């Protein structure tokens, strides 16, 4: 990767010496021997003839935050979008190897994609609320998938909005258009909407890149809260963010997993020279 050193790259990548790794501690204490939620074995991915992911093998633990970092174009978003098969939208893609979520290979024939995407929620780079009311945004998933009796939907909506730390801000205007919320609120609504489906796993594709610092802090707080109940995989360009929220960090470069380990170790004592170069801001 020969991406130039922009001033931005330096600011976002310089990890202050005394960074705390709040998530790292409880990863060690509580997630030592749980079965992995996502297992990747020899997974490769192509757009047409262009191979973007090369022979990935690693696993993602349950109920923890796993961050994926790496320079632009390294394939981290492609990997994330492989997990719920959003890449299916792009014509002429091909995958080999195994990507196992909750015991099932995501790319096997006959996978019930609707049920799979209900179990694996996704939060996108930019808030993409539906042009409907706040309530409807959250209620749509569970109603469609008939997850719960109709009468329980209002309670579920409230629960999801509370979990997304949005309830107090919107409880008086549940039926006004979601597009009237601020960017940060919209992103938390997107998280609430994903929770409405009662997923086990949340995929987050740079969820804070379109948010201001205040809204970013709220979403990060929320992520730390949510990981008690959900497996979270987050792609981020912001390495301080990875350090703040994740227990485990994987560093991708050119479609290859260079290194993966506990976040504290990756940021303080990376074993690979490329990882060190990236996190200290020498490239990317």
């Amino acid at each position, binding site marked *: 990767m020969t991406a130039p050193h922009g001033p931005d790259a330096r600011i976002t990548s310089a990890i202050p010496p005394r960074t705390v790794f709040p998530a790292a501690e409880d990863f060690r204490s509580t997630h030592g021997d749980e079965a992995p939620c996502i297992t990747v074995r020899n997974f490769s991915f192509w757009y047409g003839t262009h191979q973007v992911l090369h022979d990935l093998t690693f696993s993602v633990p349950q109920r923890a935050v796993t961050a994926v970092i790496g320079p632009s174009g390294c394939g981290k978003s492609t990997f994330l979008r492989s997990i719920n098969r959003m890449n299916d939208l792009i014509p002429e893609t091909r995958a080999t190897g195994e990507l196992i979520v909750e015991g099932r290979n995501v790319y096997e024939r006959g996978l019930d994609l609707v049920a799979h995407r209900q179990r694996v929620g996704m939060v996108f780079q930019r808030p*993409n609320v539906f042009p409907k009311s706040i309530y409807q945004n959250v209620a749509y998933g569970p109603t469609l998938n008939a997850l719960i009796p109709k009468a329980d939907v209002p309670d579920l909506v409230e629960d999801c909005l509370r979990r997304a730390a949005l309830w107090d801000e919107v409880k008086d205007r549940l039926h006004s258009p979601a*597009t009237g919320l601020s960017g940060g609120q919209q992103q938390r609504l997107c998280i609430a909407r994903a929770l409405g489906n009662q997923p086990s796993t949340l995929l987050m594709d740079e969820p804070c890149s379109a948010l201001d610092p205040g809204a970013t802090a709220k979403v990060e707080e929320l992520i730390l809260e949510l990981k008690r109940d959900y497996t979270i995989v987050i792609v981020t360009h912001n390495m301080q963010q990875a350090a703040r929220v994740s227990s485990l960090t994987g560093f991708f470069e050119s479609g290859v997993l260079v290194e993966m380990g506990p976040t504290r170790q990756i940021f303080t004592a990376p074993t690979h020279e490329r990882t060190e170069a990236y996190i200290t801001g020498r490239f990317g």
Partner: protein
Amino acid sequence: MNPRAYRRFKSHVMVGLMGVAVLVAVLPLLAILVSLTLKGASSLSLAFFTNTPVPAGETGGGVLHAIVGTLMIVGIASLIGVPIGIGAGIYCAEYPASRLAGITRFVSDVLNGTPSIVVGVFVWTVVVAQQKHFSAFAGSIALAILMIPMVTRTTEELIKLVPVSLREAALALGYPRWRTSLTIVLRTALPGIVTGALLSVARAAGETAPLLFTALGSQYLSFNPDQPMAALPLVVFTYASGPYEEWHQLAWATALVLILVVFLLSVAARLATRQRFSSNG
């Protein structure tokens, strides 16, 4: 002249030219509205809207038959044309690379540029000549043929404007594709599609040539789509080309009513777009 003053001079000249262009563009419209109002408004009265024509030579009479006729012919045309147009538009937007979508796009563009009288003659051949009589229904078919390509193209363009991120959001929630298209994508594009449909209705309401060969026109109030029926543009045509001065008066007044109908539809279209939700707040 120093360079800055020269630039300012050029700017003023260009702004002036654009202003003249705007005037020239708006002038015919204003002239039409003013002359219609001056010549037609005096003949407008409540009776004009509630009566049917009287025999030539007598004064009075109205165009109720033509108002009813236009509403019926255009209404039936919309019932046929709008759903087909929207359906075809959705198909073209959802399967943009398919062969059928390419053909549909091409045919729509050609049909959009086809003179409406050609459509009238065509419908005369395949409907009127077969049935051996003129009918309002044949007129509706002709107008529907004119509306379909317009609605198809606007629907496709508006669906394409819906951000991909919204589609992704729905799919990621486990929506099947058809449901994503109908409930999220179409719903988001709907205000624009309604506008497009209303504009095509307005255009169809003003068409004369296709109706000459199909609905033919009539002097009587009729609600039977299987029979010839009057329509506002046909009445304008008949009265304006007739020999009597009163008829010319009636033609002006009828033209004014027609313009009002089209204007009301355009306003409705504007209101429909204004309620559009923006997708990024």
